């Protein structure tokens, strides 16, 4: 499908399969911190001075973490977890003809949380979710 236009993050939400209370937090920003594969250098004696170092990609992907920024609810502080659960992030609908949002789903856990309680503004925080398994991408649909 052709690219239509840029979109904002409005419509994004995250749902926790087990600790459902966390799903109700007001998310203000989502940062996917990087999905990557290892870069494996394969230099050999047949190379000449000035050549570029050759690489092969690793076989496995590193899911890294996803950082969610949220409005602090003092009754629901998301804490680091010791067990994995299914986490589903609902994506903004990017196509005007679609009504069902796309999702990314994976097994993961909260690995870090931090928040601030400033005197002159609303309380905001962020938590990191460690991607601990395969990510399933589902496109939006009509």
């Amino acid at each position, binding site marked *: 499908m052709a690219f239509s236009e840029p979109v904002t993050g409005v*419509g*994004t939400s995250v749902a926790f399969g087990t600790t459902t209370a966390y799903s109700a937090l*007001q*998310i*203000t920003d989502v940062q996917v911190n990087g999905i990557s594969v290892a870069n494996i250098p394969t230099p050999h004696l047949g190379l000449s001075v000035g050549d570029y170092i050759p690489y092969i990609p690793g076989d496995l992907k590193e899911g890294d973490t996803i950082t969610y920024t949220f*409005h602090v609810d003092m009754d629901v502080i998301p804490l680091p977890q010791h067990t994995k659960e299914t986490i589903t992030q609902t994506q903004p609908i990017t196509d005007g003809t679609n009504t069902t949002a796309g999702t990314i789903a994976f097994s993961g856990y909260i690995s870090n949380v931090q928040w601030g309680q400033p005197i002159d503004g*609303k309380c905001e925080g962020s938590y990191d979710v460690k991607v601990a398994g395969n990510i399933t991408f589902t496109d939006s649909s009509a």
Partner: protein
Amino acid sequence: MGVAAVTAVTNRMYSDVLGQGATLPAIVYRIVSGEHAHHLKGSANFGETVIQIDCIDDSHTGRDDADALAEIVRKNLTSYSGTVGGDKINNILASTPRYRYEQPRDGKGIGRFVHSRDYRVFHAEPAVST
């Protein structure tokens, strides 16, 4: 300035404009700016409104009465939380005051001493369905 004088001023609080010939001391308040908080699913039903409050007097003794009135306003508003007219206020912060003197327009008598201060009001907003 005594409490009685301040009580009298409560009947002379004006929105935006001090009318011509208004009795002094008086208070003029105006909304300077507003900000609404959002999250990725809609409104956070939380806002910050900046309100400027000018305490005005034309005392022959100088600006002391305007400053005293402003100080009473500050003490009553700073750190206030509660419900006013159905609106929930989380907190009020006083900003740095500003002082000015307004010359009399006809060049006679004494002008006006104005003690002006912005207040940052953090408050809930009516829920918006998403």
